[in-house]
Every structure is written in structure tokens, then in C-alpha cells.
């Protein structure tokens, strides 16, 4: 194994990091194209789920594996149609393979064909679909949570669900949806700084939108719906090729964003129970680690002309009797199938299949995560042809050979698996009474974390390794809801463009929570929604998905973007 350092001339670094990230019309078009592809695929998968589970149009329901594969195929197909001229765009691809997380699972569940389980959904399941596309490194990421309802009833000659989803699952969905809207509106205020003065709740600030404002709003919404913001949630700046896809593998310089993790839950609880002279952890990294701009802090100002990804995951905790910590456990089942190339490592591989695979990945996937099925020759699937079972069998056959190559890649750390994680609730009383002789020095090397976030509970001195040993005392959360939306803040046209998400594509499912927003943020939220809905100058537009005609794109809708 050999670690390589990439030497980039300062002038080139300026071009790559600054110039290529200014939002000129060409760049915005690329972002929009990536957004359109992501939106279309998201809509396509929602439609597939609706058809097979709610409207019973298929003989048997699609499994998670099939949905992932069909979604990836759709992404690949749409990507192949856009920006076909090589001189304009050298790289384009899937920035996040379609992953479908059911209930307590939080990320990266995207089973391959070789896994035997044929997982389907049950009524009452909360299903999160995550995916992404990139064109020339300009990335759009999308996540949306939908509800699987029991068989519907006929109303006005149309099948409709009988009632909304209730309980803590619904709490999470409602809170997540409201928080995402609020954060997007707050980000939008960076384009219109003069409007900040209109909102009395924000007036004490000096007409800027900061990370801590975003955090406080999201936390307050979570609190009023008896929810917890799941660790790993982020509101972060997206730059060309830097969309958080290699988090924990490569540290990103000049990271800008709000990140939620376990330490925030600890801090909240400490604030609740304080009243002593206790020094509460201030969220800033220790002075020893403060040297790097890769450590996320809330001390940043949202600026117009930037792109942000709002990726929030909420978990309802009203069903847990005891106050507990919501944390992420590495799941044993299903195994990780999404991999990311660690470009810092080179190694002379022994197996031919491994060499073929690394060549393919370096050529086609660049710095974005990939699945083994993407590398097969029978990929993407062509559902419009009648021989779909044969196509799937061909991929399956090819996968078996490529699995061996992948094994060598992961053994040599040339590719790192993206962890499949599930949300878990550990009672705080268990954590407090557990002995912790190693203190904060036990580091979990296998856990991919952002720099500066290695210690989950800094005040208690509980390390990730210790927390891992406490998982057996915890219970899996009922469900998590995740909404991810990439937002472009255009400083020239003063427009806010939602590349992904929005009501047209990711309409919230019918849910009812018994809670409502607390008085602390109700005023702010009303003011923000008024701004979005009624103020003409505050322009928010959504990238619309292409017209899906029975899984096919009609010819006039074919992308004419380049």
C-alpha cells in the first residue's frame, strides 16, 4: 500500500476550487441537468412503488433489490442521454446509487442481486429513497421518505389510502418535512439579505444567516415533535466534486456546514439539566484539532452564489419511555454494497478481475460511490425490452466473477464500503452507569467520521468504541424520516433553485402527528412560509422531473440540454 499526495499548483487549486464553482449559466445548467435526472428517477421509483404496492398493477410487488437496480438503470439511461458531447463534459455519473432504507435503517441499503433476501415492504413501513446524479462534478442529491399504506379504498373511482399514518413515524416525517422547508427558506434569505430585517425573530442578527441559526431552528422543530435529529444529518455546502460522498475517507478542506452528531444530543441534555457552574461543551473542536478547516463548526455565514445540500434525518422518540441517545449502529444485515474509491491509495493488484474492476472504477466512477452491478456489461437494464428476467440473470452471473475482484480491492483499502447503518436508542441511564476505564482514548478506526467528530460524547468522555459496546442495551428506533434537497442560491438572478425535492416530485405522504410546532419557532416558520409563498421577489423554483410515460421518457422530453 502506498499513500500518494496530490500536488496541485496554487493557481490550479484556485481554478478548481473557486473559478469552477462560480455559478455562471453553464454551471447552473449542469446543476439543473443533474437535478432533473435525480428528480426524474426519484419520481420513477415512487411510481414503481405505488404501482406495485398501492395500486396492485404488477403481479407481485417489486423487491428492494429490483427497485434499486431499476432506479440505477434509469439514472444511467438519463445520464447517457444528457451532455453527450465529450468536449463539454468529461465526467458524469451516478453520485449516489439508489438506496432504499426501510424504517430504522438510515443509509446505504442497496442490496445487490447476489444477496438472497427478497425484501419487500409491509403496510405501515416508512421507506426512504436516496439517490444522486452528477454532471461534470456538479452534484444533485435527493432523499425522500414515503409511507407504505394498507390496501386503499375506492373514493370517486380512485384508490386512496383509508387514513393517515399516525404515531412516532408520522412525527418524524412531519418534523423532517417542516425543518427542510424552513432551512431552505433560511438559506434563501442569504440571497435576499434585506428581507432578514422583515422577520422579527431573526432581527437581532446582523443581516446574515449563520450555521448556528440553522441549527437552532432545526433543533427546536425536532423538539416540538418529540424527535431527535439523527447523527449524520447535515446542511452543507456542495462544491464541484465535493458533495460529502467520501466523508471519513478524504477530509474536505474549507468544509462549510452544520453537522449533527451524538455530541449535540448530549449538549442539549446538559443545557436542560444545568444550573450549576458546569462548563458545557461549546461545540468547538479542541485547540489541537482547530488547525484544519476540515473540522465542521457552526461559525459560518451562508453566502449567495453557493450550493447547499439540506440532508436531514429525524427519528421520533415519543415511544421510548426513557430519555436516550439516538445513535447509528453498523448493521450486520444487509451487507454493504456501496463502495467508494479511496484515491489516495495505490496498490499493485494480483487478480485480473481486481485490476479490471479498478480500471473501470477509476475511468467511470471517479470520486463517487459505486455498486458492483454498475460495472456489469448488462447494466443498465432495459425494462422496455421484454427479456427483463434474462437481463437480470446476466447481471447476476457477471456479479459472481466481479465479487472476487472487489474483495481484493476492499482488502487493500482501495475501495471502502459505505456503512449500512440503523438508528438505535440507548437509554442515557445505561450510558451513565457504564464503567468507562479507557475514557475517550478508545478510537473506533473502522468508523468513517468527519474530522473532529471522532468522540461521540465529549463531556462524558465516551468514545465510539465504548458506545459500540453499549448497543446491546439499546433498542432499534421505530423509524427515521429523511429528506434531502440540493439548493442553488443564484446571486445573479436572486433566485433559489431547488435542484431536488419539492412538492412536485417529493410530495409528503399523508401523515398526522399529534404535536405541532412550539411557540418558540411558530412565528418564525409562519414568517418564512409567508416569504416563500407570498413575496414576489423571493423566487423559489423547483427543477421539474421529466414526464414519465409508463417507465419510459417520451421522445420530445429527451434532454436537449447541451
Amino acid at each position, binding site marked *: 500500500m502506498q499513500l500518494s499526495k496530490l500536488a496541485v499548483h496554487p493557481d490550479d487549486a484556485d481554478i478548481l476550487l473557486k473559478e469552477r464553482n462560480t455559478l455562471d449559466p453553464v454551471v447552473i445548467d449542469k446543476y439543473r441537468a443533474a437535478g432533473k435526472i435525480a428528480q426524474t428517477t426519484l419520481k420513477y421509483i415512487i411510481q414503481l412503488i405505488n404501482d406495485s404496492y398501492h395500486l396492485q398493477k404488477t403481479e407481485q410487488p417489486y423487491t428492494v433489490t429490483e427497485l434499486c437496480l431499476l432506479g440505477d438503470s434509469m439514472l444511467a439511461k438519463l445520464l447517457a442521454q444528457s451532455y453527450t458531447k465529450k468536449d463539454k463534459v468529461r465526467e458524469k455519473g451516478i453520485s449516489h446509487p439508489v438506496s432504499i432504507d426501510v424504517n430504522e435503517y438510515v443509509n446505504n441499503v442497496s442490496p445487490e442481486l447476489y444477496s438472497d433476501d427478497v425484501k419487500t415492504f409491509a403496510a405501515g413501513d416508512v421507506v426512504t429513497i436516496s439517490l444522486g446524479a452528477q454532471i461534470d462534478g456538479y452534484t444533485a442529491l435527493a432523499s425522500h421518505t414515503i409511507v407504505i399504506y394498507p390496501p386503499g379504498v375506492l373514493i370517486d373511482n380512485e384508490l386512496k389510502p383509508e387514513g393517515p399514518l399516525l404515531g412516532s413515524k408520522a412525527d418524524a416525517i412531519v418534523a423532517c418535512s417542516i425543518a427542510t422547508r424552513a432551512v431552505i427558506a433560511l438559506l434563501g434569505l442569504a440571497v435576499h439579505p434585506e428581507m432578514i430585517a422583515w422577520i422579527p425573530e431573526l432581527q437581532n442578527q446582523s443581516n446574515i444567516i449563520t450555521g448556528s441559526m440553522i441549527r437552532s431552528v432545526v433543533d427546536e422543530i425536532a423538539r416540538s415533535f418529540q424527535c431527535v435529529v439523527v447523527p449524520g444529518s447535515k446542511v452543507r455546502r456542495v462544491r464541484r466534486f465535493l458533495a460529502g460522498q467520501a466523508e471519513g475517507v478524504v477530509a474536505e478542506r474549507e468544509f462549510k456546514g452544520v453537522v449533527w452528531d451524538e455530541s449535540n444530543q448530549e449538549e442539549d441534555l446538559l443545557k436542560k439539566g444545568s444550573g450549576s457552574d458546569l462548563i458545557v461543551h461549546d461545540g468547538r473542536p479542541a485547540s489541537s484539532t482547530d488547525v484544519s478547516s476540515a473540522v465542521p463548526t457552526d461559525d459560518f455565514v451562508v453566502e449567495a452564489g453557493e450550493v447547499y445540500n439540506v440532508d436531514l434525518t429525524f427519528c421520533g422518540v415519543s415511544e421510548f419511555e426513557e430519555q436516550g441517545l439516538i445513535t447509528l449502529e453498523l448493521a450486520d444485515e444487509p451487507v454493504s454494497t456501496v463502495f467508494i474509491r479511496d484515491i489516495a491509495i495505490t496498490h499493485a493488484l494480483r487478480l485480473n478481475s481486481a485490476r479490471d474492476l479498478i480500471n473501470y472504477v477509476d475511468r467511470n466512477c471517479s470520486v463517487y460511490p459505486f455498486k458492483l452491478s454498475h460495472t456489469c456489461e448488462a447494466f443498465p437494464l432495459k425494462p422496455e425490452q421484454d427479456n427483463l428476467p434474462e437481463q437480470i440473470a446476466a447481471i447476476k452471473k457477471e456479479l459472481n466473477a466481479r465479487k472476487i475482484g472487489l474483495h481484493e480491492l476492499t482488502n487493500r483499502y482501495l475501495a471502502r464500503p459505505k456503512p449500512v447503518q440503523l438508528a438505535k436508542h440507548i437509554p442515557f441511564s445505561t450510558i451513565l452507569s457504564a464503567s468507562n476505564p479507557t475514557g475517550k482514548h478508545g478510537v473506533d478506526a473502522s468508523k468513517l467520521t468527519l474530522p473532529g467528530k471522532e468522540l461521540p460524547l465529549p463531556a462524558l468522555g465516551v468514545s465510539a468504541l465504548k458506545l459500540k459496546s453499549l448497543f446491546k442495551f439499546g433498542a432499534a428506533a421505530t423509524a427515521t424520516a429523511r429528506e434531502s434537497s440540493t439548493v442553488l442560491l443564484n446571486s445573479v438572478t436572486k433566485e433559489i433553485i431547488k435542484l431536488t425535492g419539492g412538492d412536485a416530485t417529493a410530495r409528503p405522504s399523508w401523515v398526522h402527528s399529534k404535536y*405541532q410546532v412550539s411557540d418558540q419557532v411558530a412565528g418564525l416558520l409562519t414568517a418564512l412560509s409567508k416569504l416563500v409563498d407570498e413575496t414576489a421577489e423571493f423566487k423559489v423554483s423547483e427543477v421539474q422531473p421529466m414526464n414519465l410515460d409508463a417507465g419510459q421518457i417520451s421522445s420530445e422530453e429527451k434532454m436537449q440540454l447541451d
Partner: protein
Amino acid sequence: MASKNSINKPKGKIHAAAHSKRLNQKRAARAKLAAPTRSSHGRYNLQTVARPTDSKAMALYTGAPREQSGTTVTTSILSKKRAKKIERNARYIAQRKAQLEASRAAESGMEMDVQTIAKREKEVKPETNLDKVKKVLYRAIEEAAKEKSLGVAGEGTTLGVQAF
């Protein structure tokens, strides 16, 4: 048996016998002269030689010299080590006496000296920051549990429409 003049008389044997006989005689004579030991004459016989464990000190401290004898000059020498030991013992005795008195007072229901109680209490370690954090967190958990038991007010929130 071979005669005294025999060529192969057992010279060594004879010599050894004569030697041991002479030693026995000497021992017997010495035993007659010496005082009996305590172990051979019973423990209450005080007319015996000193036991090896008996104190060989030149003088034993028996408390402060009395007033009239304070002026007398003594020739007995006290080793430094022994003086220390004597002092220590005296301190222990005083302590034990005070304790006995305190317990006797407690039994009879009389009030005790506050100072003695404070002295007897175990020393408490100073509270660390971790202890403080844990205390605050425990309090917060209790408060959160109380908050949870309160009911919810209002109509709640509905999202979405009645459609798949």
C-alpha cells in the same frame, strides 16, 4: 575386643568417647552453677534466667518523672528508637482512651464532642468535572421524564393529501 596396645585398636572411637565424656562433665558442672530457664521450671518461677524476648533495655519509661524525683539525676540511657516508640505508644493510649470515653458517652446518651465526629468521618474525594456532568445529566433525565408525562395540547399537524 582389641587391647589397648593392639596394632589395630580403634583409636578414633576411643578418643571420641573420651572427648564426649569430658564435654558431658563440663556441661553438667555448668548446669549446676547456672540459674534455671523459665521453660524448664514453669512459667511462674521468677527465679530463672531472662528469656531472649525479655527487654534488655537499660531503663523503661514509665510516664513523666514525678515532681520530687524530677531533680534526680539518672545514669540510664534511652535509645532514640525506643524513645520514639514510647512516645508513639503514649499517643495511642490517649487516643484509645478518648475513643472509649466517647463511646461510653454515646451509650449513656450524653452529647458528643462535634470535633471528634468530624474527625471520624471518612474523607470525601473532591468532585471531578465528570461527576458534575453525570449529576447534571441524571437531573436532566429525571426532568425529561416528568415533562413526557404531560399531555399534548392542540390539534396536531397533518401533512400531505389523501392519495397514494
